[in-house]
């Protein structure tokens, strides 16, 4: 009898461990903060790309509405891929604030001269710390911000696809 209890408890614990490990196998190990609705502290200052003017980041965003931020760099190949999609946003009259990530200003300006400028305003982020304020992990990344609650409502990590553009458009139309 005692032996049986020992055997059953051992078997049960083995089954529990097995189930836990099996469940763990299906959990995605890739980090994704796309669903994270973090708040942004809008109290820092930034420098504009074209005229070196220093402004408060707050001044760039619509306090009542949604804003779109795109983090890019001229050295980043996927940024080039998503560029036509960003131009589409411009054609839809959607304002996009660009954050130029760890880039040479001259190269950044050449990139825009060559491919067109989809941004309503561009700020520089020489050391990458401004992008961290937006919870970014690299380039390209696009973030939709609610100006009223000062929080991120949607994040697109990687180059924007056509579907992403439609989603951004519907998010903005929903709000207005």
């Amino acid at each position: 009898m005692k032996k049986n209890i020992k055997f059953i408890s051992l078997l049960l614990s083995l089954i529990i461990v097995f189930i836990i490990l099996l469940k763990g196998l299906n959990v995605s190990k890739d980090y994704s903060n796309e669903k994270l609705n973090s708040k942004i502290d809008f109290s820092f200052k930034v420098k504009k790309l074209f005229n070196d003017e220093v402004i408060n980041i707050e001044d760039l965003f619509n306090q009542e509405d949604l804003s779109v931020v795109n983090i890019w760099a001229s050295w980043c190949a996927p940024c080039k891929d998503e560029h036509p999609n960003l131009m589409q946003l411009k054609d839809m009259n959607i304002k996009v604030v660009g954050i130029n990530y760890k880039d040479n200003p001259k190269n950044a300006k050449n990139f825009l001269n060559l491919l067109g400028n989809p941004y309503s305003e561009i700020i520089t982020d020489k050391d990458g710390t401004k992008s961290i304020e937006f919870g970014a992990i690299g380039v390209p990344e696009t973030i939709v911000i609610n100006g009223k609650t000062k929080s991120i409502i949607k994040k697109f990590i990687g180059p924007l696809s056509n579907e992403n553009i439609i989603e951004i458009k519907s998010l903005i139309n929903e709000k207005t």
Partner: protein
Amino acid sequence: MKKPKFINLILIFVLIFKTSYANELNSQVDQITKNLRCLICQGQSVYDSQSDFAISMKTVVKNKLDEGKEEKEIYEYLKNKYGEWIVYEPELNQNTFLLWLIPLILFIFGGLLITRKVSIK
């Protein structure tokens, strides 16, 4: 013109203070970044990684310490941006209580088993 001796002395003190502050700041940055996960690297901490993200993160931690922020406040700030995953040491909450509790339960259970075996003998 000869500089008065006490000015030299003050300069030496300032220099010593500055280097010791810089050393302390750097060791604090190292300590914090060792507990931060590099989100774009495989199995590396921010301290170990030389990726663009990790380098920026080290600058952010240094800036926050310069502003007078405490270690805990920096973790909270980063958790708000990147979630719980950014720190290596998970917090005790309803999602992680099993993680913290199971080793303790196993330890107590094992201890009991050993004492029972010993007392039987």
